[in-house]
């Protein structure tokens, strides 16, 4: 529903603004331009997106994702002390986080949902601290190689679309650190 409000708002504001600023014809032409720009964008990123999805599938099938998830265990046990003793929960959290790191969005969500279901077996309507942490970890982007964005940059004529990687890692690191800190802090302040 949020997008309904946003999209309708964008269109109505454009028409009202365009009419009052005397830019009606430009707004009319822009709607057409926008649709063809969208189709062009999709065509130009299609190749890279498919190639990367293919490479990610090889990573998954060859066990690279599972290996990564074993490496993550010690870090994750500190983030999720409430469920650290439960191996099934920790396994699905590790798999979820490593799929996120590799950019396997389609694989990450089902794994994360499995972890969420396993850590709240009592079907309580209130989120536990561990569930909040899992959700916040999934709302922060920790993808090591942001392939979609790189495809967009390449389509715009960039010679080195991956030169933003260090900046992305830095920004992601700050973002997830703030998210985790906010969770730990708010867990103490927020009495359910």
């Amino acid at each position, binding site marked *: 529903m949020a997008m309904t409000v946003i999209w309708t708002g964008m269109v109505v504001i454009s028409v009202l603004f365009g009419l009052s600023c005397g830019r009606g014809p430009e707004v009319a032409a822009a709607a057409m331009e926008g649709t063809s720009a969208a189709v062009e964008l999709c065509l130009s990123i299609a190749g890279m997106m498919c*190639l990367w999805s293919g490479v990610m599938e090889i990573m998954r099938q060859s066990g690279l994702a599972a290996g990564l998830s074993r490496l993550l265990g010690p870090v994750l046990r500190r983030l999720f002390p409430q469920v650290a003793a439960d191996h099934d929960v920790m396994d699905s959290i590790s798999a979820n986080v490593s799929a996120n790191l590799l950019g396997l969005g389609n694989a990450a969500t089902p794994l994360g949902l499995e972890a969420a279901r396993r850590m709240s077996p009592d079907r309580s309507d209130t989120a536990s601290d561990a569930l909040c942490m899992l959700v916040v970890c999934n709302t922060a982007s920790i993808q090591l190689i942001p392939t979609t964005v790189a495809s967009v940059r390449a389509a715009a004529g960039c010679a080195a679309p991956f030169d933003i990687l260090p900046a992305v890692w830095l920004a992601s690191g700050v973002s997830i650190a703030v998210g985790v800190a906010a969770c730990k802090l708010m867990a103490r302040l927020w009495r359910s």
Partner: protein
Amino acid sequence: MELLFTMIVPLTIAAVALYGAGRRVDVYAALVRGAASGLETLARIVPALIGLLAAVYMLRASGALEWAAQALAPLMESLGLPPELLPLMLVRPVSGSAALGVGSELIARFGPDSTLGRTAAVMLGSTETTFYTVAVYFSAVGVTRSRYAIPAALCADLAGFLASAWAVRLLF
């Protein structure tokens, strides 16, 4: 270092293919299967992207975006953020395809190697669709009281936006 980041795509692909072949994975079949799922992802975002880019282009042509950016410029600038990025920051937590549409328009208009184009790209790469993720997870386990999950996640988003602008200025 620069060569490494230019070569990261072919190097990663070669390394993954070699590792997969070493582990007796049918590398080519996996590649094709994954590529097909990439096409599915793309097919899912095409309709949304068409609707959103039409609206973004209309908004830009109407002058409303410049007006909003100008009105909020002092606030954005005091945080070290270019005001042109405001629309991207507003849609990022709500919709992934909308953010991709707004971001790609910024990247194409200002150029992928401009400070603004780079910042938009880093913002897209370092944040997620917060509200969508929160909705999916909590509805899957029947949680209606999400407590501090949304404020904490939005703190992470805001930190990611600020850090994107700082990281681009620091590294380029």
